[in-house]
């Protein structure tokens, strides 16, 4: 019964992803990508992680995709025929991808939880992914990586400004 939403959304995600890849128009690609982001966000919701889900919406759909769309529109790309990849190369790459798929599937089949860490064991998994749990983690164990993220973002901002600056 509760498989239905999962499978539906999953199929939607795959479809949108396909459309992202195969759309001729870049703007359409970007729009399908937004759809894909939504699908992922819903999957997160289904996994009881609302905070990550809304982050997905805000960051991906709201900011990054908006930004990409802005860039696409600013470039004002006209549709022009994209040269196809050479056939031999294409076959090789596809073979490689299939191999990769097999490997990943194998890895996931063998997956089992590493260890029950205990800090969440007693809690209801419905509340898994609530903000305060993540916040507790960020401001205790994950503090240094979290601060490093801020450094990364600052660097990105500086870099982007520098690139955009005209001489």
């Amino acid at each position: 019964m509760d498989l239905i939403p999962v499978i539906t959304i999953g199929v939607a995600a795959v479809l949108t992803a396909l459309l992202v890849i195969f759309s001729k128009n870049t703007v359409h690609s970007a729009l399908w990508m937004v759809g894909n982001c939504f699908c992922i966000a819903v999957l997160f919701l289904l996994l009881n992680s609302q905070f990550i889900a809304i982050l997905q919406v805000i960051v991906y759909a709201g900011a990054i995709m908006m930004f990409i769309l802005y860039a696409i529109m600013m470039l004002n790309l006209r549709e022009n025929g994209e040269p196809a990849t050479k056939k031999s190369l294409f076959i090789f790459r596809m073979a490689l991808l299939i191999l990769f798929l097999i490997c990943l599937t194998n890895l996931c089949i063998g997956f089992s939880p590493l260890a029950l860490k205990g800090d969440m064991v007693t809690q209801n998994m419905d509340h898994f992914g609530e903000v305060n749990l993540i916040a507790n983690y960020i401001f205790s164990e994950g503090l240094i990586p979290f601060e490093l993220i801020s450094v990364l973002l600052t660097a990105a901002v500086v870099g982007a400004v520098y690139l955009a600056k005209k001489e």
Partner: protein
Amino acid sequence: MFDLVWLIPIFPLTGVLINGIFGRRIENKSKRLVHWIACGAVGLSFLVTLTIFLQLLGLPAEKRLYDFNWFSWISAGTFQASVGYQIDPLSMFMCMFVTGVGFLIHVYSIGYMWHDEGRYYRYFTYLNLFMFSMITLVLADNFLLMFLGWEGVGVCSYLLISYWFSDMANAVAGKKAFITNRVGDFFFAVGMLLLLVNLGSHGTWSLKFSDVFTHISLLSPKLITVICLLFFMGCTAKSAQIPLYIWLPDAMAGPTPVSALIHAATMVTAGVYFVARCNILYTMSPFAMSVVATVGAMTAFLAATIALTQNDIKKVLAYSTVSQLGYMFLGLGVGAFAAGLFHVLTHSFFKALLFMCSGSVIHAMSGEQDMRKMGGLKDKMPVTFYTMLIGALAIVGFPGFSGFFSKDEILWKAFSSPQGSTGLWLAGLMAAAMTSFYMFRLIFMTFFNECRASEHVKQHIHESPKTMTVPLIILAVLSIAGGFIGVPEALMGSNRVEHFLAPVMGMGEGKLLMAADGTKMLHEVSEGAAHHAFSMEYGLMLLTVLIVFCGIFLAYLMYMKKRALPEAIAAKSPFSYRLLLNKWYIDELYEKVVIRPLHGFGMFLWKGIDVVVIDGLVNGTARFFMKCGNTAKFSQTGYVQRYAVSFLVGAVVLAAYYIYVG
């Protein structure tokens, strides 16, 4: 006051630094200031030396040892080498005349180099550097610091011989001196390391003279002989003895004051000083002693024969220096360390004097050095003539002049001491005879008869300036008076030199060390000199004087009375004449036996090993990796997607690893 000993080397070093760094600017501003600095530095050193020397004289003989440890130089494990100065009769004796004669020659250089085209400050910088090195050499309290000075004087010698380096011959001469010295230094260093390692295995990781000499008896006699011979090899290079004397005559390419200072009075006596310093080692090895004596005698004889035929005024003096150095080693070899050192002292006076006189002559002759083109300078250059005459009389051992006392002492010891023999004495005697001949040949050819120089040169002949003649006069006085400080007992003298040096010689040094150190000498060294038999000494002395007169007379005969005679003799026995003129073909022999094979071997190493094998390896490696890079660079296509594909390959490999291996 002894603690001020560091001032002695520091003054010349300061001179070096000032002139070396700011010399160009100083010279541009005031040329005088350059020599004021240089001479002032050496003069101050001399004053300090003098005060310390006088103070040392004021002490009782058994307390005349002071070790001034300045600062630690090398510290490796238990091995310690410090920059320290040893004040004892021997070092002060050497230091006195090194700074004294050095000062005089510095002053003399002012006149000699004033008109030189080269850089004035450079000359004085080198000269001061030499003084610093030489002082370090004689004052050092350990082998290592002494070796530093030893090498330093070698460097300065090289720099000063090729001072006029724009002339190829001078540069070659400098190179020859340097390389020859390196041969000796190599043996010296080996000997030093051998000494250190063997002493170290007995628990004494030190190269300090006092440590070495107190513990030397721990080593086996054979080892000591080997070490002594290795050291002596070093000395033969530095002090121009057979087989490594060949550089010294060529070293006359440098400015004459340099010849006087380095290649006559001070540096070349470093070997003598060293053997005397290590007299404990040598007295423990009779074989090494006999080698020293034999080599000395042979050198004295050989060099004297070569000097007979040389025409270059400085070459004659150079060979005479070699000969006289042979005398010194002869003295050392027969155990008469004091006599040898006494000769070092007197020799430094009269040989410096002779060189400087010859310099004065060359100066006057506008750089001409060939005696065949001189003559008749007696009246034009009276001061030079008389002083040079005094020098010549001193060197031949004319009674009453300084050479007489010191040379006689050596000859007597060669004859009478246990290590001596009639053969050695005879060689010395022959050399003395030849010395008188060639010295007066030089005097007659240069100062008497008509002037054979070209008209242009003749007009310029003049007496040298005051800065040159005053040192000449001072040295002339010393050449006469210097002998009287060491008049042997046979001549009612007290032989002050021997008594002064006695504390550091043979048994004396042991006693001194015991007094200073409190340790006992384990080995009793035999006393060098036997008791005198005065009558015998008188006889030999008389014989020597006679022979010297013969030599002078012969020279008078051949170069004043019958001036055709030399050519006649040369024509009669062309072979022996040519042999002597070409210096026994020793240079050619070395060229054939040593240099050619070595050169060939070097060429083989260069063309064969270095170019083909080593360069081939290096270049081949470079080429190999260049090929690799050229091949591998095609993976760097710049296409993002190809990179992405390679990521993917890596990811597949990683995933496969985790599935099937991890």
